[in-house]
């Protein structure tokens, strides 16, 4: 085999190495997306865990506001039961609305607002809302990074062969759910 043969072999070897490296990179980015999505779940669970405590605290001062409490509890259950992304988004709306009304109720009771328990819960809830937002942001950033790789040329050839599909961004459909819940007075 002459020089030309060796050169061709060398080029082929380089291409193979590149293809493997690119494939592995796609795997890493795709796994990161999975991880990011489960991180969103973790924060959502946290919020669901905080809600009963909050309801109990407010009940201590405003026991008669039955409807509001039921609304919150139902919305929370909807969130926990949600299986598809659609259900999840719908539950989001319900929870947002219900929590808004709950805090509106609490506004009328200054003694409640002054208790340490309430302020702590308020802080934790606000923090969790922030973390949910950040987790969704990281999820979207991960999807963006992944798309940038699988759509660029020549990496898209590897993507096509390896069966890497594009992923959905997390988007909030409902206008009401876009804004943060006003938990500070």
């Amino acid at each position, binding site marked *: 085999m002459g020089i030309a043969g060796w050169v061709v072999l060398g080029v082929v070897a380089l291409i193979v190495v590149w293809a493997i490296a690119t494939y592995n990179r796609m795997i890493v980015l795709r796994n990161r997306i999975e991880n*990011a999505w489960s991180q969103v779940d973790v924060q959502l669970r946290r919020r669901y865990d905080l809600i009963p405590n909050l309801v109990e605290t407010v009940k201590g001062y405003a026991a008669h506001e039955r409807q509001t409490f039921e609304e919150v509890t139902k919305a929370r259950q909807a969130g926990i039961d949600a299986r598809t992304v659609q259900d999840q988004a719908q539950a989001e709306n319900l929870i947002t609305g219900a929590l808004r009304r709950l805090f509106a109720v609490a506004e009328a009771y200054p003694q409640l607002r002054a208790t340490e328990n309430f302020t702590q819960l308020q802080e934790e809830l*606000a*923090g969790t809302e922030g973390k949910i937002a950040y*987790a969704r942001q*990281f999820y979207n950033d991960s999807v963006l990074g992944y798309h940038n790789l699988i759509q660029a040329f020549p990496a898209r050839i590897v993507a096509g062969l390896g069966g890497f599909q594009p992923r959905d961004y997390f988007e909030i459909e409902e206008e009401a759910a876009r804004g943060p819940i006003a938990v500070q007075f």
Partner: protein
Amino acid sequence: MGRPAEPISMFDEIAANRRRSYLLIIGIVLLIIGVVYVFGLYFDLGHWVLIPAVGFALALAWGSYYYSDQIVLGMSSAQPVVREEEPYLWNTVEGLAIAAGLPMPRPYLIEDSAPNAFATGRDPQHAAIAVTRGLLDKLNRAELEGVIGHEMAHVANFDIRFMTLVSVLVGTVVLLSDWMLRSLRYSRSRRSGGKGGNPLLLIGLVFVILSPIIAQLMKLALSRQREYLADATGARLTRYPEGLASALQKLTADTEPLEVANKATAHLYIINPLTEHRGRLNSLFSTHPPIEERVKRLRAM
């Protein structure tokens, strides 16, 4: 300098800053190669003695880098934050760590009323972010998030590791240059004439004398670049550049000196804690870029 009129996205800013950092690093490495080359011109042998010298410098640097978090936190009298005592600070650090996809750095608090903050730690698994009591008291929530975002960016960009690497490179240049000049003086006293008279070697000599200064300037330029990069990355994390911009303006206006800071740790803080050094406009010798320029770039995003 020609800054474009339309707003630059944070991602472009990040990419541009990274490019400049790489170029500067390449510059320092070339500087080292240059010094070694000139060294080789003067001495046909003896390259091997450089190895223990550089080895010693590397060992020192590695030790300081490995324990960087403990050293710096100790020097600054920083106390670990208890979650129940500072829930907002804790939640903010945790939230931004989630946004960056990093394990949460340990938050620390410095009891000083001068507002400032820094990040340390050799990698995200061993990172810590320290803020002063003054920062918590004087900034509003959006501004605090901006500052924590900037510090988180330093952790995410491995800036501590990066600047340690740069310090090692600079230290190597200084060592080499010093060694060579020393050997030159020694050898000249032994033999007369020798290689003197060759103009190329003379230029090489001037180059070697100047190399430590050039290396230091490059290191300071790199430090400023990484600050811009941390601003841009932090803005990408919070998606709210105005928070940091507003915080920087407030921080500069506060001229209270930070007692625990000194010249060795000053470069780590978000703005120069040695308030008497802050006034220099666009100084080549400054570790931090001018605040006006930082604010301008943030507001253009």
